[in-house]
């Protein structure tokens, strides 16, 4: 039951999102990968925005799990629990 929050910088590119601004979804998966899979099922175009063609998290995308940045971006497999909050946002590289 991890909560996944998509930053507004992402949702503005989703024609099927409810509108501009952050979007929060409840997911059922036990790992980050499973949670992401559920989000991508809801927003198919989002996959290519968050992951590169090899399945790793994009170099300039950051994923925070309960406030800690995901370290192994090539393998987004971290376990998540019911109370986990996952934030997906643009990495702050540059002004």
């Amino acid at each position: 039951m991890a909560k996944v929050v998509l930053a507004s910088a992402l949702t503005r590119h989703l024609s099927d999102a409810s509108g501009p601004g952050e979007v929060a979804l409840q997911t059922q998966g036990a790992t980050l990968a499973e949670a992401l899979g559920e989000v991508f099922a809801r927003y198919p175009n989002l996959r290519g925005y968050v992951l590169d063609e090899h399945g790793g998290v994009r170099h300039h995308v950051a994923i925070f799990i309960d406030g800690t940045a995901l370290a192994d971006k090539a393998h987004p497999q971290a376990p998540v629990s019911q109370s986990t909050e996952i934030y997906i946002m643009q990495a702050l590289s540059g002004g």
Partner: protein
Amino acid sequence: MSANSKQSRLLVATRKGLFALARTNGAWDVESVSFLGDNVTRAFADTRDGTWYAALNLGHFGVKLRRSEDRGKSWQEIAVPEYAAEDKVATGDGKEPAPAKLQLLWELVAGGANEPGVLWAGTIPGGLFRSADRGASWQIVKGLWDRSERMQWFGGGYDAPGIHSVCVDPRDARTLRVAISCGGVWQSRDGGASWNVTTKGMFAAYMPPERREDPAIQDPHRMVQCAAAPDHLWIQHHNGVFRSTDGGMSWSEIQVPPSVFGFAVAVHPHDPQTAWFVPAVKDEKRVPVDGKLVVARTRDGGVSFDVLREGLPQRDAFDLVYRHGLAIDSSGERLAFGSTTGNLWLSDDAGENWQLINGNLPPIHAVNFE
């Protein structure tokens, strides 16, 4: 459209959006703005079915491709070329091999007139891709990607090599010619299954003497093909201007005033002897010579040139025109070019006179007529 009527709409891909400018009552105005704020690297209108395509580089979120069937009123996200897990980029200048990932959609052109829906995409890091379904899916051209010479290519302005010019032969769409920074010129006669590198006559002054004429490291900045005489091609190369009259098999060096350095080249669609360039101070500076922006035009295959400056700034100009920033329309009389400083000029008389039609655009990557 008849061959002689001028095209009256421009698609201008910029650092902060796609701008369509249209000519009404003799004036050029911004007709529509798409993707305001986003980096649009290429756009083109497919004359076979009227579809517009726009390539975006969203930075954080990667390279995207959008398609419009109503001239930019609405856009649909379509697939982008993707590299496979085993695809690697290695370069001839000693960089460590790295996994290939799509970094830039640098070239996007239509297939042959008899191939509806076929598109070709040139990318950084060096893959050529084909779509048979208007961009709904893409396949890498393995015949080129798997060539061992690719490992000798260099980056040209980017870390990894890139394909920026794809010429589909109007006589036979299976004949393809591509130009690569820095990887030379490659040709296929069989729709991309097999390839040969053809750079005879080109040289690279930036290389050690014994590698000067090495085909795999030549840096053509842009290659264009005459539609009516497809054996005639022109290249603005890092080290000069080259012309071929034999389908790109061999190349002759051309001297262009006031400088042989530049990125852009356009060839007249009906007259292979006529071509235009926007010269700049070479290499380290990349600004107009003496602060004077000019266009160089030849009408005799490069024997002589006119340096055209009417209507262009002749002092304190620092505009650079990128490789896709100069366009010619189907009549061969109307040209437009856009600069890194967001200036857009247009000529209705083959470059004799220019008018600034917008001086406040974002930095311009690419200009195309519709």
